[in-house]
């Protein structure tokens, strides 16, 4: 077991015309021993490249990778003591499940055959695939192949597991089952794990910490709840959470935030009064982005203050446990924002609604840099570090 350190990791690809493409730029993450770290971001953000650099399948352009007290970025993949689970599972089609699981031990250790046999039997038992050991991958379902791919990694007892979107080829139900199971496995094995996904639900539910990447740059490394409630910037705020946070471009005018959509300043639809504390955190910023999560918007009976807004319900998305309301400031407004209300509440499309935006729940971001100027206040201070 060991901790994994990424230090200013950079990857520059040279394309066919000799041009340089920076895929990963100065990413530094310190992953503790036994930690489950999720690398998340939109496609093309460099998360897979980062993982492949850790595996040794991609060379490192600059920076260091340390595993325990060894520097491993100049080592061959087979000398790094790392196992990887691929999205396509990458099983060896001509070998049985047993052959697939034994392969790594046969190639990388001097272990005698009967020991390998016992170890493979044990691991297969743990994953519930003991009865599949003599079959070939073509005879297995997607979920079973997934388990074999996991077993192949686990059986080698590596220092680090790398997983590249391992659940994305499974159907939704199986995926959520495997999500729980993977977490339990990782906890039992207590092996440092780096898990790549583009799915923010997976990131939120599985990771001890999540690292959010965009355009090859690290945006934030935090616990899931921290990233959710205290996003470092606008990108993280918009990426984490479903449905996404609502954003409004605003201009700071005294103690009012005046709605001023970028490129179309005449179309401002509201002004939002702010307290002196909030005003202070804005400092000299003149243009900002106001963010509010859908579940923090309350639908109230009548407008009582300047933070309540008359809106019209444009579309209702019933989810069962809750309804997503798409609200417009007027009936024919093209711009809508989302509010989430309880599933038992009856709301009709076209009906007027009063949306309350509590000041304690708003986020403010610098309009130019996207950096968070103020995050929501946490009534429950323990929310940043949840205790079980």
């Amino acid at each position: 077991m060991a901790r994994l350190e990424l230090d200013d990791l950079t990857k520059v690809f040279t394309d066919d015309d000799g041009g340089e493409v920076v895929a990963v730029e100065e990413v530094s993450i310190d992953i503790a021993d036994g930690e489950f770290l999720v690398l998340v971001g939109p496609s093309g953000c460099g998360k897979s490249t980062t993982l492949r650099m850790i595996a040794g399948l991609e060379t490192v352009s600059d920076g260091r990778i340390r595993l325990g007290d060894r520097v491993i970025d100049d080592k061959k993949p087979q000398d790094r003591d790392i196992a990887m689970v691929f999205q396509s599972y990458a099983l060896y089609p001509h070998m049985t499940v047993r052959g697939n699981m034994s392969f790594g031990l046969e190639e990388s250790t001097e272990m005698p055959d009967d020991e390998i046999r016992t170890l493979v039997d044990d691991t297969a038992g743990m994953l519930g695939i003991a009865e599949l050991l003599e079959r070939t991958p073509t005879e297995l379902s997607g979920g079973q192949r997934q388990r074999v791919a996991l077993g192949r990694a686990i059986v080698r007892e590596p220092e680090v597991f790398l997983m590249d979107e391992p659940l994305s080829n499974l159907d939704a139900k199986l995926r959520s089952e495997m999500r729980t199971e993977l977490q339990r496995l990782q906890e039992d094995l207590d092996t440092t794990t780096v898990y790549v996904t583009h799915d923010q639900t997976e990131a939120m539910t599985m990771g001890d910490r999540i690292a959010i990447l965009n355009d090859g740059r690290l945006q934030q490394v935090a616990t899931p709840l921290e990233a959710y409630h205290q996003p470092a910037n606008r990108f993280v705020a918009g990426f984490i959470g479903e449905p996404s946070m609502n954003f409004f471009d605003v201009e700071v005018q005294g103690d009012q935030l005046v709605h001023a959509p970028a490129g179309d300043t005449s179309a401002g639809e509201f002004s939002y009064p702010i307290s002196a504390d909030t005003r202070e955190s804005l400092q000299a910023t003149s243009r900002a982005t106001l963010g509010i999560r859908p579940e923090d918007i309350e639908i109230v009976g009548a407008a009582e203050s300047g933070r309540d807004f008359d809106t019209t319900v444009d579309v209702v998305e019933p989810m069962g446990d809750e309804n997503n309301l798409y609200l417009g400031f007027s009936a024919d407004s093209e711009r809508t924002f989302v509010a989430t209300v309880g599933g038992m509440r009856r709301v009709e499309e076209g009906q007027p609604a009063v949306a309350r935006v509590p000041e304690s729940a708003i986020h403010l971001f610098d309009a130019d840099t996207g950096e968070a100027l103020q995050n929501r206040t946490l009534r429950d201070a323990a929310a940043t570090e949840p205790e079980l």
Partner: protein
Amino acid sequence: MSTVDEAAEERFSINPARVGLYLTLGGLLVFFLAPIETGVVTSLKTPDAVGTTSPLVPSVEGFTLDNYATAVSELLPGMVNSLLYAVPATILSALFGSFAAYGLTLTDWRGQIGVLLLFVAGIFIPYQAVLVPLTRLFSVLGLSTLGIWGLLGIDNAYAGIVELIITHTAYGIPICAILFRSYYKGMSEEMLESARLDGATVRRAYRRIVFPLSTPMFAVVLIYQFTQIWNDLLFALVLVQAESSAAAPVTLILAGLGASQSGTIFGLRMAGAFVAALPTLAVYVLFGEEFAKGVAT
């Protein structure tokens, strides 16, 4: 008129385009099969019958199996000689081709494209262009003058067989490598990366993963190469030269079979051609199923 009637009429009406198509197909069938039919019929006739009957019609009174008996006894030593170099050269060129394709496709190093282009160029070198350098090379090497032939008590003409193995292997590698390369390009990269992470070296990954998965392509390449090498006359003529040599391949003997100053024995020549073709047919039958898989991919 109802649509049912129209459909019925269409089914029975004669479409001139279709008639033309089937006439053409039938014509092509006759065109391609007639020579084989002639060959078979002629190979079963006595020389007299060949002279007096039509080449396409079997002759009852002129029927004989002597042609086949003679062809087999004349060609057998040649067929053994041919097998002696065709089998090793086929296996070696397929194996080296597969190695080369693996190195050029599934591993990563600088200058791959340049080497690949050399392989492609190798396919297009005309055999005629290398005949003289080839004979010069082997006369300089002087394989037939080595003491080993005397020690083993083998006719030193068999040096020609060794030369043929080397030559056919060398000239077979480029096309084999290109065939394997197209097959390997379709192989899962993640699977090989997984093997690397599992601790397999480049050599071990080939032996345990790439090689076992190449069976269908090996069938294609083995059939193709064996047919090419077995049927080759040019290199045999240049390297072994004499039909009377102890090491003469079947093609060399076949060229002179049934030809004499008193005239050509067509029946014998035809029988010889069929006998000489038997091993290539056998190879097709042997690897046919895998061949179909390999071609399909």
